[in-house]
């Protein structure tokens, strides 16, 4: 995912799909194309109890970008500064090679434009200091966007402080 990751907190996710809808609506993506996809399992009964979990799957912006390698016209490119992989729409010839090449078929088909379209992690918003649409719209803060090291640090800090607080109170 270039220099960034989006993490999912399934305890906070309510499977409302606001992430997908806002992406389609604000990025003007056709209804049928889903760039970042929230995958939900459940609710279902597991050992007599209802359970559910979820995982947000945007484009991974792979280091080995199959889509980029497959594109015959070099319409798919990588930003040097943060490794984000994006499609130059004007160059796309609509051959769908990227969709086929991607192991997860992440690039989507924009039937209105006759071109492939894929998640660029809202790089215009990132440049403006904002979070991607999917993350910023999430009503429960279930999605988190950032650099892996920052997220890791934040999570460990919160966990560690919680433990320390407990120890201190117990002592």
């Amino acid at each position: 995912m270039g220099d960034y990751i989006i993490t999912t907190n399934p305890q906070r996710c309510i499977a409302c799909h606001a992430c997908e809808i806002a992406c389609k609506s604000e990025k003007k993506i056709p209804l049928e194309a889903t760039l970042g996809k929230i995958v939900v399992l459940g609710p279902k009964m597991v050992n007599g109890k209802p359970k559910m979990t979820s995982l947000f799957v945007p484009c991974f912006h792979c280091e080995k970008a199959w889509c980029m390698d497959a594109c015959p016209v070099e319409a798919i490119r990588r930003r040097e500064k943060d490794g984000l992989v994006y499609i130059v729409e004007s160059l796309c010839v609509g051959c769908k090679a990227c969709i086929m090449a991607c192991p997860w078929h992440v690039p989507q088909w924009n039937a209105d434009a006759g071109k492939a379209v894929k998640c660029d992690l809202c790089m215009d918003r990132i440049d403006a200091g904002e979070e991607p649409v999917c993350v910023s719209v999430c009503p429960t803060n279930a999605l988190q966007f950032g650099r892996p090291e920052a997220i890791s640090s934040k999570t460990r800090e919160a966990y560690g402080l919680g433990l320390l607080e407990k120890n201190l109170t117990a002592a």
Partner: protein
Amino acid sequence: MKKVVHTLCFMCSVRCPIDVTVENDQVVSIRGNAYVPAMNGGVCPKAAAAIAAVNDTQRVQSPLIRVGERGSGQWRRVSWTEALDYTANRCKDIFSKYGAKSSVYCERANLISDISKSFQKAIGSPNHFTHDTVCKGSINTACRSIIGYTDGQINTDWSNVKHAVLYGRNVFESVEVKAMNGFISALEKGCKLTYIDPRVTITAAKATDYKMIRPGGDLAFNYALIHTIIREKLYDAPYVERWFKGFDELCSFVDPYTPEWAEAECGLPAAEIVQLARELSKSKPSVVFHYGYRGSHHPTETYFRRSIMILNGLMGSIESKGGLFIKKGLKDAGYPAGLKAFSSQKFPEMPDKRRFDGCGQEKFPIADPAHGVGFMFPHAVLNEDPYPIKVVFAFRYDPLLSNPDYHTNLKALQKLDLIVASDVNFGGTTAMADVILPESHFLERSDPLQMGSGLKPAINRRIACIKPRFDTKPMWWIVKELAVRLGVGQYFSYETAEDIWNYQLADLDIKIEDFDRTGFVSLSDKAIWWDRNDGIKFKTPSGKIEVISELMESHQIPSLPSYENLDAQEDAFRLMCGRCVAHTNVMTQNNLYLNNLVPENRIWINEKRAKKLGIADNDLVEVSSPTGTGKIRVFVTDMIHPEAAFLLHGFGHQEVESKRSYQKGLPDNLFQERHYDKIGGSPALDHSWVTVRKI
């Protein structure tokens, strides 16, 4: 040039504060108001789909007068002048024969309700009701009977709750963003959630304990909980001593309702009921039994909701941190007056004050006339009881799809001389109207200010973000234009939204500009709590929590009547209805994105029952009740109680103009019989039986 407008959403009735980014008169994004931390910056999927809603070409695009049969989709596009003149002239003609009381104004309670009520008062009709009455008339009545406040005047301190008990209150699908965020954070901090519902929902999957109760068993369950709490002295004794009226009577009343007794009635093990009572007591007073929305709408609903409020009282939770609180308004925040209301003007005396529904009168003496009893609308029309009803103003409320028994509702609408509808979209009733006066979308209109009562009261403002996409108008303008034509324009002393705001703020030292920076005016920096030991201003006649209710007893309605067992039908299913995260009532099924997310409903039945009936998942089945029959796909699952069937509300739209939702799924009210709670007036939406047959 981009600008951010702070306004109030209206994709559902919660009205979250939102930030709308606009560029070249187009909405480019919608987020939670950044000045309201509890919004977390986000919005629900409905608000995320609002841009598609405002730009939808399947909206009502101009005033229309019907030319074909009702519901045929044949319209004549007319000017506002023609539509308003037509409406007013038809009204004058009808009123001259039957009086203005022959008109009923129904609406989804909203920011212009004060103006709507003024309209009926001005023309001389006592008949106004809101959608609230259909969802929660009995909750309102139950709450008033016991604490003197309506359910709308209390709320939950979600972020500090330590144990919540929700009876079908599906907080994670029927979403209020601020409350939900606070509650999820509370759950992360270890708050317990006991969720009681015959059907598994997303809220059930998030619960620490889910109880699949027999449909309708909630009241018996609650009586056994109360029994246990009293028997084992698990209640907040000083609080009960200080605030309860009728505790001794309660003790004698619940004596026979043991957990073992309840087990037979509600299907949950007695030991679990006892264990829950003990668990709850450990977290008191930060305990909430939620009183509202969905779950167990039966003829005894007033008593069920009262039992919930009694439980809150026993745990000492009312006006306690992490419990329920009474919402505080302008006066509690030290202001001398409230927002000035149009409906408090002096109107001419009405010649006949009898309401169409008998609310606050003979039929429903203790139901709330501020909302009415919408359930009675088809009855009043069809039986001309208490007098002929000839005109309906269906303003953003849908009497066809939002009341039990579709065919009866249809017959009632057909009997009317004039159906005037105002809505953004074509709904069931709008499509049947004689004249449509289309309202502008909430992103296109400014509305009267909202009093946001709460722990930290505020006044909130909805302001137009963009120009209307089509030839539509704000409702306050439409109402005034009709009033002028009916000779009562003097009660609507405004030309613009700014005039309305200035009128509302007349008695306060608050200016319109004060709303510009954040979209609201905060009236208190800190949360206003009353002293729970001695300062709670219960509004009951005794100033206490009235288990024995003066309101009820003075109208010969017993406070604690004996429990009556549920009926059972072995070959049928008790039909329940409910909500999902994608849709608001019957209003959003045609939205581009929300339709795509949940396009139609299926009937849920239990896998064991299905097997016996030879029904497999996704089969087409025929569902029947005494009120209707229809074909629908089935969802066979272990996530529903064997005695129950379930339908998502809001589907089965027959209006040809709404092309995406047209004839998708079935309306739940096709099968709902006209059962109701005779005290609070709520329809017993979950009380009907249906049979399911493989085709």
